């Protein structure tokens, strides 16, 4: 699905944020990218949809090289990648529904978008997603009236409105309290599994990364120093990523302290994308 080869980024200031990163994503898994601040996590995610222009290297999404595209083609590819941000980045003066529908902007004409007249399928999908992220009835609330956790839920729904082939998630919980963080992570993981969408999640909290991801990539100083199962995060590995520290308290799964544990992957029959966002378990 996604193959990154020798991706490098040098900022105009001279900072070398990525030094030849290569990785492959071939299954719909949740992949956590961990590493100290300044390791290049954010740059990596943003180079994939070219919100940051990579200096060199290749980003292959299926058969398209994202790096070589012109602006028009790039917009088409961006539609296929949903992005979730640390600061939620909702358009604050728009309603929740408008924010959700803005995920479909790449697919509708200007005039329809201007009149907020989206296709019925999009509107239905938006209502379903709103339900899924637990914001039923919030469609006409303005985004600046929501709490942080609620905003991030809207952010997740907006990204999924794109029916993306890949989710790029940049520090989704860094601005949230621990309990909300876990709820948000759970929603992301559930939905990613449900829609069979691989997700690259930047996260600085090792505990969260361990409990919610299928695969962990450790990034240090712009280079991949670890790539494997969450269980493989030993003290040794963490030292390689973050440097010397007593890791004994970090390495254990954080117990689930809130509502429910991660749900088993749902019946694949019900989650085919072609069927929209219907999911029997939650719709009932």
């Amino acid at each position, binding site marked *: 699905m996604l193959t990154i080869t020798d991706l490098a980024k040098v900022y105009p200031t001279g900072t070398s944020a990525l030094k030849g990163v290569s990785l492959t994503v071939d299954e719909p898994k949740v992949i956590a990218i961990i590493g100290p601040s300044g390791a290049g996590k954010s740059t990596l995610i943003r180079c994939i949809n070219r919100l940051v222009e990579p200096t060199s290297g290749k980003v292959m999404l299926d058969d398209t090289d994202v790096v070589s595209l012109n602006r028009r083609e790039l917009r088409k590819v961006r539609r296929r990648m949903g992005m979730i941000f640390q600061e939620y980045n909702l358009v604050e003066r728009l*309603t929740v*529904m408008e924010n959700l529908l803005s995920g479909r902007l790449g697919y509708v004409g200007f005039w329809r978008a201007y009149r*907020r007249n*989206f296709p019925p399928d999009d509107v*239905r999908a938006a*209502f379903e997603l709103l339900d899924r992220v637990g914001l039923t009835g919030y469609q006409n609330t303005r985004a600046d009236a929501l709490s942080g956790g609620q905003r991030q839920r809207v952010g997740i729904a907006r990204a999924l409105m794109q029916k993306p082939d890949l989710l790029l998630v940049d520090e989704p919980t860094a601005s949230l309290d621990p309990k909300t963080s876990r709820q948000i992570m759970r929603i992301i993981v559930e939905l990613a599994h449900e829609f069979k969408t691989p997700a690259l999640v930047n996260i600085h909290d090792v505990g969260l990364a361990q409990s919610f991801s299928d695969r962990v990539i450790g990034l240090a100083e712009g280079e991949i120093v670890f790539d494997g199962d969450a269980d493989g995060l030993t003290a040794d590995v963490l030292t390689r990523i973050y440097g010397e520290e007593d890791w004994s308290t970090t390495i254990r799964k954080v117990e689930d302290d809130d509502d429910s544990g991660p749900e088993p992957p749902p019946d694949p029959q019900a989650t085919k994308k072609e069927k929209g966002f219907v999911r029997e378990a939650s*719709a009932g």
Partner: protein
Amino acid sequence: MSPAEHSVRYPEVWRRFTPRQTLVRYVWYVAVVFVAAWSLRSLDLPWVYFLDAHVQAWDLMVRLVPPDWEVLDEVVDALIETMHIATLGTAVTVIIAFPIAFLAARNTTFNVVTWSIARFILVASRSVNTVVWALLFVAIFGPGPVAGIWAIAFRSIGFMGKLTAEAIEEIDQGAVEAIEATGASRLQVLMFGILPQVLPVIYGTTVYRWDINIRESTVLGFVGAGGIGILLYSTMNLFRWEQVSVLLIAIFAVVLISEFISAAVRQRIT
């Protein structure tokens, strides 16, 4: 869940605005366009002039270059006069606006009558444009910088007076009461209770108005009230465009510099 329930829970139509809101919005659009069209129609503008406007404008541009730097001496003199008019006008304003501001502030005025009179002066001063004031003062004092200074002052009184009066109304009343409680006279209350609180505002607005006045005083000459405007008007009427360009460059520079000074000073004192 049955399909019917499903379609109720997840409707396929969503409207940001009610039809009424949409209608109101479109009525506004139409009204704005209509008003603009009505204005343009009744102004009966000679649009034919636009046919060769670009030729005319280009022609003018060509004639503006090369600037005739010979006139620079004259221009500098005129600029200095312009700045004098702006500065002295601002100084006069401070002297006059200050007492009026105290009368126009509810907490320092004597009674309703003094308050109304002061407010009326401020409103009248602001309603009349500097150039119109200049017209008046040229008729009184004859052409020259004196008319300009008074014109600048009379327009600025309203501006400075209003802002100062607002600052006086917003002061911390507790400090004033404390001074009054010591048995101080009215003047002493003013000196020790009120003045220290509003002085920064007065400094700030003075510098700000001075900057505006520089820009205003560049055109006073058009009605004979002194400054660089006289020179600009006469060179334009004589079609000496290469001199006009020198004047424009000079005005551009002075206005920019004064704006810069004013911004820098205001940043330091507030």
